[in-house]
C-alpha cells in the first residue's frame, strides 16, 4: 500500500502526543477552577472564536469536503456553503434567545420551562442519536487518516482513535479544552493556507507530479476495430478477452497482454472513433491468494495483492486550456487564473462501477473526461439538470440536503454549548463572528484544496476522504505529516467532545433525572464513564462499517437528524407561546424516527446492505425536506391539542425578563 516514512511517523506521533498532553494539562487545571464553563468565562473572545472553528472544522470539513470536491467538483463545495450558512441560523435566531433562557444546553433549556419527564427522555435520546450519527464520520475519518501515514489498516485506525478517546474521557474527563481547540483550529487554517499557496504555485499541468518518487501513470488509449461487434485492439500486443456491460451504455473490456489481464472502458474519443481507455480495478476474491510475504489476502489492486500494490491514485487534466489556447502547463497562477484554467480545460475524473468476473466482484474505476465548466457548477453528484436526466426526486434530494445543512448547525448540541464559554453577551457575539470569519475563510480554501487534489493525480480512488492530505504529500512529506496530525488531533477532540455529550445524556439526563435514580456525584461520574466506553465501542463498530463512504456525506445525515429532532423544539420554544411539553416531546420523537427511518430505508443505505438502490422503499437519500416540516407540524398539532393544561409558556417568561 502506501510508502511509510519514518520522519512522517515521528512528526505525527510527537504532535499527537503534544495535543494529548495539552488536553490532559488543561483538563487538570479546569478541575481546580470552578468547572469547565466558568473557566471558559476568562477566555478572550478572539481565542474563543478560533476555538469555535477548531471545534466545528472536524473531519467532515477538512477530509470530507475536500474529498468530495476532488471527486465531484462544485457539489462538494455545496457542503462548505451550507455548513457556513448554518451559523447564520445559530447567530441570529437561536444563540441569544437561548442564552437569555439562562441555560447552556438544549436539554436544560427545554426542561427548565416544563420540568417534564417526556422532554427529559426525548431530549436525552436525541442528544444520544445525534452524537452517534456525528461520531460515525469522525471515526471513518480517523481510520482513513492512518492508512497512508502509518501504513495501518482502516480498522486499526478506528480502534486506535476509539481507544485513545476512551482513555482520555475515562481518565481526564472533558479533554478538549478551549485552548486545545484554539491551537488546532488556528493550525488547521494556517496549514491549509500554506497548502493552497503551494497548490497555486505548482499550478496546472497535464502531467501532474503525484508523488515525488514515482512519475504519474500515463493512462493509455487504444484504437479498436469494432467490425466484429467486439473492441479488438489495433495494437497487436493486446488480445481481446471479453466484454462486460456494467450498465446501459457502459461497457468494460478485458484484454490480455504478455499473460497479464487488464480492464478497459469501451468508449469513443473526441473525434467519435471507437477506443478503449485504460482503467484501474479492484478485485474482491472469493478464494484468497498469498501475497509476497505469504499472508492470505482477498483484495487485489490492478491484479496485485493489496499488500504488495501501490494505492490507486489518479485524476489529471487531459486538455489544459487557458484563454482558449491549449497549453502544456500553467505555473505560479493566481486564484482567478486557477479557476479559469480549470473552467476551460477537460479533466479526467474516475468513476467506479462494480461488475461480476466469474465468482469474483471487480470494481472498475474508469476514466470520465469532464469539461471544467461542469466541474465548476452543481450536478456531478446531486443531479439537478432535467436536461441531463434529473428527476423530481433528484431535485428534491438536492433541496433537502441544502435545507438540512442550513438548519442543522443550530441544532447540534455540542455546537450550542460553545456559545457560552465567554463572559459577556458582546464577547459571545464577537467570538461567533471570529468563528464565522475563520470558518468561512477555511471553506473558501476547501475549493482550491479539493480542485488541486482532483487535477494532481493524488485522489485515492477507493476512498476520497484523504484527498487534501494526499495533495500535501505530493508536495512534501513534512507538510503531509503535520496536516495529517492536525486532522487526527481534530478528530480526537471532536470524538471526545461527542462521547462526553452522549455519556452525559445517559448519566445525567436519563439515569439521574428521568429514572430518578438519585446518583451520588461519584456514581454519576462512574455511570458516565461506563456510558462513554459503551458509546466509544459502538462508534468503533460503526466506523469500520461505514469505511469508504465520504465523511462529509455522512455528516450531512447527522445534520438532517439534528435539524429534524431538535430545531423545531428550539425555535417553537423560543418564538411560539402555545408550545407545550407534550408538543416538544412528540416533535423530537417524530424528528428522530422520521429522519433516521428515512436514512435507513434510503437507496444509499440499501447499497450498504448489499441490495439494489432501486429496491429501496424511499427514493430520497437526504430526509430533511420531509422530516423537518413533519416535526414542526407534529409540534403544532400536539401543542394545540394539549394546550388546556395551561403550562407556563416560555415566551411569556421571556417577555417578563425583557420588561425588567
Amino acid at each position, binding site marked *: 500500500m502506501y510508502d511509510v516514512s519514518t520522519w512522517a511517523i515521528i512528526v505525527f506521533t510527537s504532535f499527537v502526543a503534544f495535543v494529548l498532553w495539552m488536553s490532559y494539562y488543561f483538563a487538570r487545571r479546569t478541575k481546580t477552577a470552578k468547572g469547565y464553563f466558568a473557566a471558559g468565562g476568562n477566555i478572550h473572545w478572539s481565542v474563543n472564536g478560533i476555538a469555535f472553528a477548531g471545534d466545528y472544522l472536524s473531519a467532515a470539513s477538512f477530509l470530507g469536503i475536500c474529498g468530495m470536491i476532488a471527486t465531484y467538483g462544485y457539489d462538494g463545495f455545496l457542503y462548505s456553503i451550507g455548513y457556513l450558512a448554518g451559523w447564520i441560523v445559530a447567530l441570529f435566531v437561536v444563540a441569544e434567545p437561548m442564552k437569555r433562557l439562562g441555560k447552556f444546553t438544549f436539554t436544560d433549556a427545554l426542561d427548565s420551562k416544563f420540568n417534564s419527564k417526556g422532554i427529559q427522555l426525548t431530549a436525552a435520546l436525541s442528544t444520544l442519536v445525534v452524537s452517534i450519527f456525528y461520531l460515525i464520520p469522525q471515526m471513518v475519518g480517523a481510520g482513513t487518516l492512518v492508512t497512508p501515514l502509518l501504513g495501518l489498516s482502516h480498522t486499526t485506525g478506528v480502534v486506535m482513535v476509539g481507544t485513545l478517546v476512551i482513555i482520555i474521557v475515562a481518565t481526564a474527563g472533558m479533554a478538549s479544552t478551549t485552548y486545545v481547540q484554539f491551537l488546532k483550529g488556528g493550525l488547521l487554517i494556517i496549514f491549509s493556507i500554506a497548502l493552497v499557496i503551494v497548490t497555486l504555485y505548482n499550478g496546472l499541468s497535464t502531467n501532474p507530479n503525484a508523488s515525488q518518487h514515482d512519475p504519474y501513470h500515463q493512462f493509455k488509449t487504444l484504437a479498436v476495430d469494432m467490425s466484429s461487434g467486439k473492441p479488438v485492439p489495433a495494437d497487436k500486443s493486446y488480445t481481446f478477452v471479453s466484454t462486460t456491460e456494467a450498465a446501459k451504455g457502459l461497457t468494460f473490456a478485458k484484454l490480455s497482454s504478455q499473460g497479464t489481464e487488464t480492464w478497459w472502458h469501451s468508449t469513443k474519443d473526441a473525434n467519435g472513433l471507437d477506443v478503449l481507455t485504460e482503467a484501474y480495478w479492484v478485485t474482491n476474491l472469493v478464494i484468497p491468494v498469498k501475497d509476497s510475504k505469504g499472508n492470505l489476502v482477498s483484495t487485489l489492486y490492478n491484479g496485485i495483492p493489496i499488500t504488495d500494490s501501490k494505492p490507486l491514485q489518479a485524476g489529471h487534466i487531459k486538455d489544459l486550456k487557458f484563454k482558449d489556447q491549449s497549453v502544456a502547463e500553467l505555473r505560479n497562477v493566481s486564484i482567478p487564473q486557477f479557476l479559469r484554467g480549470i473552467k476551460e480545460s477537460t479533466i479526467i475524473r474516475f468513476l467506479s462501477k462494480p461488475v461480476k468476473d466469474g465468482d469474483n466482484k471487480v470494481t472498475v474505476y474508469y476514466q470520465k473526461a469532464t469539461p471544467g465548466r461542469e466541474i465548476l457548477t452543481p450536478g456531478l453528484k446531486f443531479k439537478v439538470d432535467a436536461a441531463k436526466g434529473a428527476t423530481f426526486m433528484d431535485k428534491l434530494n438536492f433541496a433537502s440536503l441544502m435545507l438540512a445543512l442550513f438548519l442543522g448547525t443550530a441544532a447540534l448540541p455540542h455546537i450550542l454549548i460553545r456559545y*457560552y464559554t465567554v463572559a459577556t453577551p458582546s464577547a459571545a457575539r464577537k467570538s461567533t463572528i471570529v468563528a464565522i470569519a475563520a470558518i468561512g475563510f477555511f471553506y473558501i480554501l476547501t475549493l482550491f484544496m479539493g480542485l488541486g487534489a482532483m487535477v494532481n493525480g493524488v485522489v485515492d480512488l477507493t476512498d476520497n476522504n484523504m484527498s487534501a492530505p494526499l495533495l500535501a504529500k505530493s508536495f512534501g512529506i513534512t507538510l503531509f505529516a503535520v496536516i495529517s496530525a492536525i486532522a487526527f488531533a481534530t478528530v480526537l477532540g471532536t470524538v471526545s467532545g461527542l462521547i462526553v455529550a452522549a455519556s452525559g445524556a445517559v448519566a445525567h439526563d436519563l439515569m439521574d433525572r428521568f429514572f430518578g435514580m438519585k446518583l451520588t456525584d461519584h456514581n454519576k461520574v462512574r455511570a458516565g464513564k461506563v456510558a462513554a466506553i459503551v458509546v466509544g465501542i459502538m462508534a468503533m463498530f460503526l466506523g469500520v462499517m461505514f469505511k469508504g463512504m465520504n465523511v462529509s456525506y455522512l455528516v450531512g445525515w447527522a445534520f438532517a437528524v439534528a435539524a429534524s429532532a431538535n430545531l423545531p423544539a428550539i425555535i417553537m420554544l423560543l418564538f411560539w407561546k402555545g408550545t407545550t411539553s407534550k408538543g416538544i416531546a412528540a416533535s423530537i420523537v417524530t424528528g428522530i424516527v422520521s429522519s433516521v427511518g428515512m436514512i435507513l430505508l434510503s437507496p444509499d443505505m440499501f447499497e450498504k446492505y448489499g441490495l439494489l438502490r432501486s429496491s429501496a422503499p424511499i427514493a430520497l437519500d437526504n430526509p430533511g425536506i420531509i422530516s423537518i416540516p413533519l416535526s414542526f407540524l407534529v409540534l403544532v398539532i400536539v401543542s394545540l391539542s394539549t394546550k388546556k393544561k395551561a403550562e407556563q409558556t416560555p415566551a411569556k417568561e421571556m417577555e417578563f425578563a425583557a420588561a425588567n
Partner: protein
Amino acid sequence: MGHGPSSDWSFDRASSFKTRVGIWMFLLYAIIYAGFIIVNTFDPQIMGSDIGGYNLAILYGFGLIVFALMLAFVYNATCTAAEEELNGPTPDLIKEEEETD
C-alpha cells in the same frame, strides 16, 4: 453536569430589539440562500453562465460565504450600539454569575 446561568442577562434592555434585528437578518439571508437552491433546482444552466473569468455558481457560492460574514459584522455593530444606548455604558453586562455547582 449541573450548572447555573451562563451570564446575567436580566439587565439587558436591548434584548427584544436584538431578537427583532436577528430575525430580519436571518430572513434576508434565508431568502438569498433559498434563491441559490431555487436557481440550482429549476434552472441549473444559469449557474454555468460566465461572469468575467468566473461563473455564477462560483460567485454565488463565494457570495453566500462573504455575505454571511458581512451580515454578522452589521449585526454585531447594531447590537453593540443598541446595548450601549439602552443600557448605558455601565459594566452591568460584564457581570458574570459564577457557576453554582
